[in-house]
């Protein structure tokens, strides 16, 4: 038995199929993974993401600490509540984790890191925080619900009183703030509008049932995976890890390499990699034939086995198979994928594949 979130017994009651995810017993689907996927694209769905780890960092030098710790530059965060997506790197430039950092006050930032990397991340952060007199607090007391879809914000706001609802609905994209006892952020991992809501663990079951009563579908990690892949978002451990750097993981845009005077962990390695030119890149693939692209299938470029799929699935929105693949930098328009010994054609495309319910394929 793995670790359980405050919603575990409710998931069971709702008939979810439970699987192990990074050491946690999590719902992979309730009734139909494809149905849950469409619910998010067309209306609203709710995911239990309480397994993710919320870390509060406090101290007068917290901004300076994060400018050292993260590859993206929190100096970009000037409005309280604004969030930043970043990688946390090791000295070799390998990705230790990807995370969201919220700027709350000049002495308080909040990080949300992945479940599977929780212990490693906390150890890494705690080892470096004292030099900046930053206090690290894991917020295991919080549950987190992601409410996603075109109708998600309006539905979630109905759980709140009139004044709090207005506050929540006024949140800009990629901004979070405390709304009553909850922390509500206009963020997500689906390519749709919505909220991620951190709340005291004891509120989670009531909030979930309330959302269900408003017509918000319970959604599992299966739909979360197909939604994020369509939205062109990486999954840590599959699309990047400690052995890969951001430039070969389609995450170059998250690296602020040239902020004057900023030396962050991994910067030296990345400067060298950039100067030499990265040998590989992460691209999107669209399967031209029938079949399903899956992680670890080999990719052939001009007849030579040269790359590998990192994440692949059937896209319920496109009704085609899509994937991310790590391939040589020179790879242009088309590749072949070895699926059980058959070579099938795939087109190289720039993710995202789907955004706000619509196909972005041309």
């Amino acid at each position, binding site marked *: 038995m793995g670790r359980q979130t405050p919603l575990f017994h409710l998931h069971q009651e709702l008939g979810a199929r439970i699987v192990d995810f990074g050491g946690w017993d999590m719902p*992979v689907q309730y009734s139909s*993974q494809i149905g849950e996927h469409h619910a998010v694209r067309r209306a609203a769905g709710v995911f239990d993401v309480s397994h993710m780890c919320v870390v509060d960092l406090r101290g007068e030098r917290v901004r300076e600490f994060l400018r050292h710790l993260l590859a993206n530059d929190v100096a970009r965060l000037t409005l309280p509540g604004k969030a930043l997506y970043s990688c946390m790197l090791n000295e070799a430039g390998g990705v230790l984790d990807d995370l969201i950092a919220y700027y709350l006050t000049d002495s308080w930032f909040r990080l949300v890191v992945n479940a599977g990397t929780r212990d490693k991340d906390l150890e890494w952060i705690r080892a470096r925080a004292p030099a900046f007199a930053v206090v690290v607090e894991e917020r295991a007391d919080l549950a987190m619900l992601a409410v996603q879809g075109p109708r998600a914000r309006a539905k979630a706001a109905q759980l709140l009183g009139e004044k709090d609802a207005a506050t929540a609905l006024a949140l800009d994209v990629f901004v979070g703030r405390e709304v009553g006892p909850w922390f509500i952020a206009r963020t997500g991992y689906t390519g749709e509008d919505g909220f991620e809501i951190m709340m005291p663990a004891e509120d989670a079951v009531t909030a979930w049932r309330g959302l269900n009563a408003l017509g918000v579908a319970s959604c599992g990690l299966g739909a979360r995976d197909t939604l994020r892949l369509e939205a062109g978002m990486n999954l840590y451990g599959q699309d990047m890890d400690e052995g890969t750097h951001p430039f070969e993981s389609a995450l170059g845009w998250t690296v602020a390499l040239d902020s004057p005077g900023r030396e962050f962990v991994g910067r030296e390695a990345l400067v060298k990699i950039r100067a030499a030119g990265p040998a590989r890149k992460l691209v999107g693939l669209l399967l031209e034939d029938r*079949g399903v692209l*899956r992680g670890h299938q080999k990719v052939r470029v001009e007849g030579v086995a040269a790359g590998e799929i990192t994440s692949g699935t*059937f896209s*319920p929105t496109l009704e085609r198979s899509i994937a991310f693949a790590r391939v040589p930098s020179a790879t242009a328009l088309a590749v072949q994928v070895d699926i059980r010994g058959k070579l099938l054609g795939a087109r190289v495309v720039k993710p995202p594949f789907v955004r706000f319910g619509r196909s972005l394929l041309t």
Partner: protein
Amino acid sequence: MSNVPADLKFTKSHEWVRTLADGSVEIGITDHAQHALGDLVFVEVPEAGRAVQAGEACAVVESVKAASDVYSPLGGEVVAGNPLLATQPEAVNTNPYGAGWLMRLMPAAGAIAAARLLTAADYQKVLEAEGG
């Protein structure tokens, strides 16, 4: 609770077998199996004329989540793969014992007896033992 039709034979690996009037057999996966797999999005069936051994992987059913092999319950020659599944793989979910059949096979001599297929009652016990 899974649907287990009394007129079919079964395997422990969750295939079903129906004997047709001409001596050939129709093969598919059970209601339990389709439910466990979830929404199917791609099905690969064998081509007519292919010789298969008992226990040989001869079809692939893929859900959003994963690909799974389907094993032939008995040896013989493939008469047909179900052409419907190229465009409607979900037929295996909605009608596993009917429109969602995977292949028809002409069994080799003695192959049916050698396969030691399970009756519906025996298969039901397999499911109960698995907690299904």
